[in-house]
């Protein structure tokens, strides 16, 4: 067990690698109740989030549709990354990281209060993620037929209240699946029912190798308040249009964009048999030095993969300092693995 954002969480329940493969090939179950759910309610909720988030909730046309976004400070630094759902015109649901939850809630509440928007933390709710090619079928099997049909008909990145559960077709693994928000007292029952169906329980270790293979950033490791989206591989999440939307951090971010950013977040694949870890140095020929932000052994590729912040250049071959040795690594564009398949040759 490890401390994670103030929560005691298991790194694994058994073999971390078997947990990883279960998600890529069948289905795995994660207790992600440490993430905090905030509901924003009020006539100006959309306006509030269009100020707070670098991505634009006005893009969410259909009820239940979700969006991934960074929340920035005035300096363009990343306060957190989050998922926001538009439940209806005056109700939005935001899911934030555990480690930043208190700070996020205070930051959001301060802006919301000025606009008459209520912010409610749904601490009575638990969150379970069921991920993998067989995940949706396992969840559907536990629902009444009409509810199962609704759940299975959810599009990617859409959530809906179905009976007592809020079911969303989202996740952090690069596989299909659901994230289910339900009353905390019902969570253990759902957990047991899924385990009884053969879904494998997975810990933080597998969650980390899965998200890294999927090329997804981890807040606090790959980005934080000292870094901005443009050097974190997250420019695609910044909604520059419409130009008149003045989200927090925009002015600084536009300056950085115009000047050109000095650093970029890249994927690395190690050519040798060793494992890259966070904070290791990366030597980029002719360009300078960088640093590994997340590194691990990829169970799918049977190689070490990493995210690294490097000088913004064209280098394709770099060297990583692993335990006193300089080992060659290849620069690649994440993701490394998607829907059970390797996206690059090793």
């Amino acid at each position, binding site marked *: 067990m490890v401390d994670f954002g103030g929560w005691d969480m298991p790194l*694994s329940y058994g*073999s*971390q*690698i078997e947990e990883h493969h279960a998600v890529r090939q069948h289905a795995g179950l994660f207790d992600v109740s440490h993430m905090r759910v905030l509901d924003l309610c009020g006539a100006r909720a959309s306006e509030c989030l269009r100020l707070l988030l670098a991505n634009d909730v006005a893009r969410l046309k259909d009820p239940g549709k979700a969006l991934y976004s960074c929340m920035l400070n005035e300096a363009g630094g990343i306060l957190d990354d989050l998922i926001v759902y538009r439940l209806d015109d005056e109700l939005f649901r935001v899911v934030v990281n555990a480690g930043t939850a208190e700070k996020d809630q205070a930051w959001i509440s301060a802006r919301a209060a000025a606009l008459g928007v209520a912010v409610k933390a749904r601490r009575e709710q638990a969150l379970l993620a069921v991920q993998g090619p067989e995940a949706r079928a396992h969840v559907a099997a536990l629902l009444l037929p009409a509810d199962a049909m609704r759940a299975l008909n959810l599009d990617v990145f859409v959530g809906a209240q179905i009976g007592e559960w809020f079911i969303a077709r989202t996740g952090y693994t690069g596989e299909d699946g659901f994230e289910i928000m339900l009353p905390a007292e019902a969570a253990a029952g759902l957990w047991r029912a899924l385990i009884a169906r053969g879904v494998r329980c997975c810990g933080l270790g597998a969650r980390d190798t899965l998200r890294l293979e999927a090329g997804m950033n981890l807040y606090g490791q790959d980005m934080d308040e000292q870094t901005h989206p443009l050097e974190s591989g997250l420019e695609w999440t910044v909604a520059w249009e419409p130009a008149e939307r003045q989200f927090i951090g925009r002015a600084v971010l536009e300056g950085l964009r115009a000047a050109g950013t000095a650093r970029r977040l890249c994927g690395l694949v190690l050519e040798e*048999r*060793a*494992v890259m*870890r966070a904070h290791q140095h990366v030597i980029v020929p002719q360009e300078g030095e960088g640093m590994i932000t997340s590194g*691990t*052994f990829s169970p799918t590729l049977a190689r070490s993969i990493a995210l690294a912040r490097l000088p913004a250049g064209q280098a394709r071959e770099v060297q990583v300092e692993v335990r006193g040795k300089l080992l060659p690594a290849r620069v690649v564009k994440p993701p490394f693995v998607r829907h059970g398949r390797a996206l690059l040759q090793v």
Partner: protein
Amino acid sequence: MSNAPADRRYARSHEWARDLGDGTVEVGISDHAQNALGDLVFVEVPETGRTLAAGEACAVVESVKAASDIYSPLGGTVVAVNEQLASAPELINQQPYEGGWIFRLRPSDGAGLAALLDAKAYLAVADSE
């Protein structure tokens, strides 16, 4: 709860050493150690013929969590290494005391083994961590 067979001796740094009765000693890591490391993904074994001092770092086991040095529990010369670990590092997780052995050495003197911990004393060390 980890286990430690009584047919061998142990170092405080979690290696085991078993007298093979032919003048050589087999070395691996304990069940406690493999459990703490988690799934092993790479193993770097010493070269055959290398001379080791007792306590010298001579191999590396890398798991999903971290890389760890393996220290030779005895002084001597490496006479064999477990080639299977190159393609199946998980042998150390699955059979830490049998198929997961790492190397064999010919001790430079006969007294080394007796200076190591017996199984009971080792388990007391491991359980106190």
